[in-house]
């Protein structure tokens, strides 16, 4: 009778499987019901707190119910306040920051930045950047330079950029000198986020360390800070290629003809190719035909980017540059290809049909 116990075993397994399926189904339904209940409660709490927070944004007095709300209502008030804080500036942002300070939110966030858990420190840093009070800014500066976790430092760097504080610029620039600094792109974005508030700090750091000068020059160029041009010219004569190239690129973005002399000098054959390529690019941005001759001399340069940027710069000059490019394009040297490309790009940009490249004479047919 071996089949009987096997059938019983099969029934047991099927029964257990069915029971497990029912338990899973009930669990799923319960989880969904719970989630819907929580979501409904959260929506109701937000609906109750939203008008109060909106009144604060418009300068109204924060009601006691908003200041003292705790639990679900308190969390809803804070969610709304932070969501609005990310969208507004000026006095509306100050009103919301004041509300959060009065609720004790800022004190709690400052304490959270000391949490042993990195994600909590990062979350607190992000929110402190929105509050942007002097205390928040001070703590963010400490995190940018002192937190042992690189991701927290990155979040704090971005948050510091959102504070709109003039002092933050120098903190961000100095963070570049610490061991394992935050990636330069993140620092540059934070400085750009600070905008005009960053300018005094950036200009002061044009006389700072190598990394600070290079970053300050780049960001000043991106911010179109014309009055900084003299400080940038001084840095063109610096001892570091990185700083010189950054200053030259920034001068190009500013587009001031006063910079032609120092920038053209960087095209000298004895200079570093990276600097010469940056100078050729910058002269194109300045667009003054007085540098056409120096750029035309670079068309045959063995360094690709020097010759390429020189050709593209000449194409920006109109008549003088186009003449120099046409002359080079008719030649046989390596500059001919760069010149033809620049002329073709110029034609396309003007909605014209580029001239067909000259065909080389077939071999064996003589000249």
């Amino acid at each position, binding site marked *: 009778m071996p089949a009987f116990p096997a059938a019983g075993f099969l029934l047991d397994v099927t029964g257990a499987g069915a029971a497990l399926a029912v338990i899973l189904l009930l669990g799923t339904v319960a989880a969904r019901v719970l989630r819907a209940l929580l979501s409904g409660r959260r929506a109701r709490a937000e609906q109750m707190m939203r008008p109060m927070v909106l009144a604060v*944004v*418009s300068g109204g007095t924060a009601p006691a119910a908003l200041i003292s709300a705790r639990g679900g209502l308190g969390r809803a008030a804070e969610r709304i306040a932070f969501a609005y804080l990310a969208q507004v500036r000026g006095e509306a*942002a100050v009103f919301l920051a004041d509300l959060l300070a009065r609720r004790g939110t800022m004190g709690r966030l400052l304490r959270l930045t000391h949490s042993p858990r990195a994600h909590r420190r990062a979350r607190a840093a992000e929110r402190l950047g929105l509050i942007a009070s002097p205390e928040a800014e001070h703590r963010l500066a400490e995190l940018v330079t002192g937190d042992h976790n690189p991701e927290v430092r990155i979040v704090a760097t971005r948050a510091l950029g959102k504070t709109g504080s003039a002092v933050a610029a120098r903190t961000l620039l100095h963070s570049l000198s610490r061991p394992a600094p935050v990636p330069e792109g993140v620092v540059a974005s934070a400085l750009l986020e600070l905008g005009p508030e960053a300018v005094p700090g950036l200009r002061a750091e044009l006389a700072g360390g190598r990394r600070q000068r290079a970053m300050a020059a780049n960001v000043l160029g991106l911010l179109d800070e014309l009055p900084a041009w003299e400080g940038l010219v001084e840095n063109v004569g610096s001892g570091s290629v990185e700083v010189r190239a950054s200053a030259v690129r920034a001068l190009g973005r500013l587009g001031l003809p006063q910079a032609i002399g120092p920038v053209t000098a960087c095209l000298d054959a004895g200079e570093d190719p990276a600097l010469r390529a940056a100078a050729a690019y910058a002269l194109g941005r300045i667009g003054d035909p007085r540098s056409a001759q120096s750029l035309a001399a670079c068309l045959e340069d063995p360094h690709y980017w020097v010759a390429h940027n020189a050709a593209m710069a000449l194409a920006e000059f109109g008549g003088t540059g186009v003449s120099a490019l046409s002359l080079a394009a008719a030649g046989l040297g390596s500059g001919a290809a760069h010149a033809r490309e620049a002329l073709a790009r110029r034609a396309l940009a003007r909605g014209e049909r580029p001239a067909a490249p000259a065909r080389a004479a077939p071999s064996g047919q003589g000249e």
Partner: protein
Amino acid sequence: MTSVLVVDDDPDVCDLVTYKLEQSGFDVRRASDGDAALREVAKKVPDLVLLDVMMPGVSGLEVLERWRSDETTAGMPVIMLTAKAQENDVERGFELGADDYVIKPFSPRELVRRVTAVLSRRQSV
């Protein structure tokens, strides 16, 4: 009452703008995307539109282009709402006929000033 249509996919921005404009005496309608904005304007042309540039589906610039090519909405004042990182879109918006632009994050008080200024400029033309 002067009517304003606020078009933004971010409900927080819509809340803030709606509240501030209603507080200043405007009659505000809302749309959460480009298609909804086109439908709202087709129903009734508002006195002014606050239009977000970056939205899912039909973008703000496309919506503006369609309005400008329709003679019933060609003259409707439009203020573009744009994020700081999309400032390049401002130029395109002006090419398409936007009357002004506001960069997010924005000052609610300044936004109302801009709305009032654009409306009074249009009325004086």
